[in-house]
């Protein structure tokens, strides 16, 4: 990892839902413009961990962070209460498990992030919407019906629209929370190709319950179990020669 720049550094992260400790002393480095996969059985805390990165937990009461997630190169702790969660979300965007386009037009969906940032200039909006839809490999399919409702798109297209919506805000890190779990295999492979494509532009963290997916798209993989990171390393090493017994049991399908 000598030539690789770190984009974020997680240090001694604990997370509480109420009095429930759900993430225990998590330490992890996120490498810039690479894909980091979080795998593990249901309820291991991988989604909880992912949602720390853009402070989604701040939307609900009784949640508490301890420790640090340092965003580099500025060296700011993005989970510190001194940092406005909105500032964090402006820099780190997210794609959710179920495609969740707004009940608006395709154009307005992608333009929303810019509208939030006060950009209303038509030509800038159009330019960015087209660029984002191209990056999300959706432009050719929707260029003739950009003013039609987003709900007319198929599930896979909707998810790529959500990716375009996130890309339009030029995030520094893009979070994917099981982005293909609601999609069919063909739509899934399109999203996976897209993720591999996107890491040239943006740092990606992806939660997946699908180990093949982690193996296909990621450079680094963290295996989580009951709120802890059991093992973290290069994806090919994790999947071929895991050093922990628990990791091996999980990836060989002995539990999970």
């Amino acid at each position: 990892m000598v030539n690789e720049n770190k984009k974020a550094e997680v240090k001694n992260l604990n997370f509480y839902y109420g009095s429930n400790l759900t993430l225990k002393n998590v330490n992890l480095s996120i490498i810039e413009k690479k894909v980091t996969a979080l795998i593990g059985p249901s309820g291991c805390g991988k989604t909880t961990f992912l949602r720390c990165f853009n402070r989604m937990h701040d939307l609900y009461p009784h949640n508490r962070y301890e420790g640090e997630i340092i965003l580099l190169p500025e060296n700011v702790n993005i989970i510190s209460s001194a940092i406005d969660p909105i500032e964090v979300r402006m820099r780190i965007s997210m794609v959710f498990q179920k495609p969740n386009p707004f009940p608006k037009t395709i154009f307005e969906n992608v333009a929303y992030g810019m509208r939030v940032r006060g950009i209303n200039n038509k030509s800038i909006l159009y330019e960015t919407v087209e660029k984002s839809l191209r990056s999300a490999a959706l432009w050719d399919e929707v260029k003739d019906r950009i003013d039609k409702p987003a709900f007319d798109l198929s599930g896979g297209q909707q998810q790529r629209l959500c990716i375009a919506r996130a890309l339009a805000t030029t995030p520094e890190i893009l979070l994917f929370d099981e982005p293909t779990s609601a999609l069919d295999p063909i739509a899934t492979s399109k999203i996976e190709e897209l993720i591999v494509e996107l890491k040239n532009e943006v740092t990606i963290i992806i939660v997946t319950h699908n180990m093949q997916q982690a193996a296909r798209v990621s450079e680094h993989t963290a295996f989580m179990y009951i709120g802890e990171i059991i093992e973290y390393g290069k994806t090919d090493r994790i999947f071929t020669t895991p050093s922990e017994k628990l990791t091996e049991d999980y990836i060989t399908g002995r539990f999970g």
Partner: protein
Amino acid sequence: MEDIRRRIRYNKFWNYIFMIAGLTATFVGLFLLAVLFIDLFIDGSERLTYKFLTSFPSRFPAEAGILSAWVGSFLLLFVTALSAIPLGVAAGIYLEEYAQKNWLTNIIEINIANLAGVPSIVYGLLALGLFVYFFEFGESILTGGLTLALLILPMVIMATREAIRAIPNSMREASYALGATKWQTVHWHIFPYSLGGILTGIIIGLSRAIGETAPIITVGALTFIAFLPTPPITSEFPFISFKWLMDPFTVMPIQMFNWVSRPQVEFQINAAAAGIILMIMTLIMNGIAIHIRYKFRKKIKW
């Protein structure tokens, strides 16, 4: 085999019984409503003329009309809508999106639900003390409109909250994840997506307000008015006048009540005719509500 069939026959027997009972129950309601409407129509149809709508009440039943009553109802609803809608919608949005869930908001919540069930005459008493005597608005259109606004405020708040609750949380998360503030999320998503439900609730509230009698009598509406309020538009600068807000008024149900309580049979006919008009007004308002709900449901699906 025979056992199973007997069992199925027995189970289905109760199925039929309920179907018949349910059908009967449905028809009792529909039948009564139809009888009521037809009866009203038979009694009042002879007075349903253009002149009836454009005449003031009179000692002579054949010359009496409902001009001051429907104008009064209309102006009252205008004041009611203008005051209850912004207050109710803002309160509903605040309670759903902004307020923290704690014991205080729980108490507020329970109280609003209770307020919706308070008898309307109690609102009349409150308004009499508050608007007529304390604020010295007098027995005016303003007082009447604000009284009805109080009455439907809990309904508007509850309708707003219900409509907002129907929005999936994934919409909020999608908006926040892009860096939106609470207000941006409300402005771009929560409000537009819940508008259909909110409008439906507002119109149903207003169509209840238009038929209210008790609180309006309590705050001192007149039962006999042979003049119209000051026109809102004047020939001199600034061309708009708010004097009508302070004018005395009557409304449709009060006019009806006044006629019903008279001994002459002809006035009963007038009351029936006014009843038909009031019912048609309510039906139109409810029709609009159903239309809006349908239109918005078609546009937004989750």
